[in-house]
């Protein structure tokens, strides 16, 4: 049988329910008061990330990612999480540090559009070890169809139609379904809604209530923020609510989507943060290189992640203010 012979059915596992009424009930019960949500990353992760939760990570793998929150999820040894691997690159690499490193199993199911790789930088040896071990269930998608899953959830409907995936093994190993358009009779692919239990998104600015501003590309975060049942925001800076009200056009995520606001300057490091700092390619290379040997990798993670109390200590390990200034200059091209 040729790989694409059976094109009517997919065989991937749907890890989350596409039940939009269940989602409505959840959002109905969610506290919606505009209250102060500022807290430490440690508190946010211990309060809002539970074992077994399904997680979505904002940004684009190594661009505008919530590194500090992801580190803390690993440090707190959260177990059996699901993940939407939506161009997951360095964020995926961080989470994989919780698998096969003697700390139980952090990830146990992944909806994959892009995992294991770091774009032009190469493949992560450790992420490959994790995904080739047979211990993490995987369901295939593409970047757009995974983005559509968040969009459907943000819209409050159980699915959206698309014209990609058709004909491919990516479809066969997804949990999408083929449907016929009721108007034109065309064959379309139905992409099920995905309401993550918790999402983590790094933004430029937020007020204490969670009214957020993102500059540059939004990737899928407009929808991820609205689809998430719980949302942890980390921000480069806190701003006053008056500032939000002076320019409401700039608000990307409204407070009622947000559960926690953590002020973490340089919080996307070593990822890129548009208009703030470029990615630290030297550090990302060091991380990749360390992974090729398991002992070196364990020692590296002890030094960078497991053995530090909080993100600021990690930044110090990586060259602190001097390095951050260099990356700022690189971003601003001065």
């Amino acid at each position, binding site marked *: 049988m*040729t790989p694409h012979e059976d094109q009517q059915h997919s065989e991937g596992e749907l890890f989350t329910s596409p039940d939009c009424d269940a989602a409505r009930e959840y959002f109905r019960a969610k506290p919606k008061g505009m209250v102060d949500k500022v807290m430490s990353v440690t508190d946010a992760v211990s309060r809002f990330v539970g074992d077994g939760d399904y997680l979505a990570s904002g940004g684009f793998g190594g661009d*505008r990612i919530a590194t500090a929150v992801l580190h803390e999820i690993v440090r707190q040894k959260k177990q059996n999480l699901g993940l939407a691997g939506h*161009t997951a690159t360095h964020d995926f690499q961080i989470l994989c540090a919780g698998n096969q490193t003697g700390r139980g199993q952090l990830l146990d199911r992944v909806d994959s559009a892009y995992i294991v790789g770091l774009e032009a930088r190469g493949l992560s040896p450790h992420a*490959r070890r994790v995904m080739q071990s047979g211990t993490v269930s995987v369901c295939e998608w593409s970047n757009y169809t995974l983005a559509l899953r968040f969009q459907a959830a943000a819209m409050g409907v159980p699915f959206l139609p698309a014209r990609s995936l058709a004909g491919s093994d990516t479809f066969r190993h997804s949990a999408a379904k083929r449907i016929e358009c009721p108007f034109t009779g065309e064959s379309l692919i139905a992409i099920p809604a995905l309401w993550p239990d918790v999402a983590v998104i790094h933004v430029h600015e937020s007020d204490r209530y969670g009214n957020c501003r993102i500059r*540059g590309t939004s990737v899928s975060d407009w929808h991820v923020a609205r689809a998430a049942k719980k949302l942890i925001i980390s921000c480069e800076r806190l701003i006053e609510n008056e500032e939000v009200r002076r320019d409401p056009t700039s608000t990307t995520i409204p407070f009622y989507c947000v559960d926690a606001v953590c002020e973490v300057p340089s919080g996307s490091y070593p990822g890129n943060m548009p208009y703030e700092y470029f990615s630290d390619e030297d550090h990302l290379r060091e991380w990749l290189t360390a992974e090729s040997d398991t002992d070196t990798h364990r020692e590296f993670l002890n030094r960078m992640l497991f053995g530090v109390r909080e993100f600021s200590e990690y930044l110090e390990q990586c060259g602190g203010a001097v390095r951050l200034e260099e990356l700022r200059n690189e971003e601003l091209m001065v």
Partner: protein
Amino acid sequence: MEMMICAASRLIDDGAMVVVGTGAPCAASMLAQKTSAPNSTLMFEAGGIGPLLPKMPISVGDSRTFYQGLMATSMGDVMETCQRGLVDYTFLGGAQIDMFGNLNSTRIGGDHQQPKVRLPGSGGANDLGSLCWRILVITPHDRRRFTERVDFITTPGFLDGPGAREKAGLPPGTGPYKVITNLAVMGFDEESKRMQVESLHSNVTLDEVQDNTGFELLVKEPLELTPTPNDEQLRVLREEVDPQRYIIGRS
């Protein structure tokens, strides 16, 4: 590498809209924009549109993809622009390609839940290869990549031949257009949808191309010689596109 990038850049017509990835595709598109196709619009899947690229992006989502750009939007917006039919070209790569231009970037060997080699997966490739009008592939040419059968169809080419894309529900009139390698430029036969050699790079023989391919290639008559890069192309490529030799320095 320079030959491959220059050959690829000549395929982009002026005024085209192109979704590009990092690496060689980005170099080729930047070169086209600075030479033969100044009115082409470069788009990146994370949402960057129409940047004046000062440097080669490292990620298709980094801030260089919208540096002095026309818009910094969302991934959905870019993909939906493709789905509406506005985007002429996409540049893709992959670990394996077969005679119908099907691409694998998901796994090699093993079974799906425990593959021998796990690769990144689709990323945006499946969407771009399904929804843009023409797929351009830039890849090194060897038997490991050019295989009789791909282990996994991540991104559909012509699937198993004429009419298969349309039958699967993909937008009509789309599909692989050219494959540009270090040895030759290949297209696809109108009738059979099979890959065919269209031009050989200088000092490359047809036997050499076939020997590095794991399936039988068709040959277009007359077989042409790929134009060698001209001085202006090489100057722009070396001085403006990739002065650090980040891409062109690779073998």
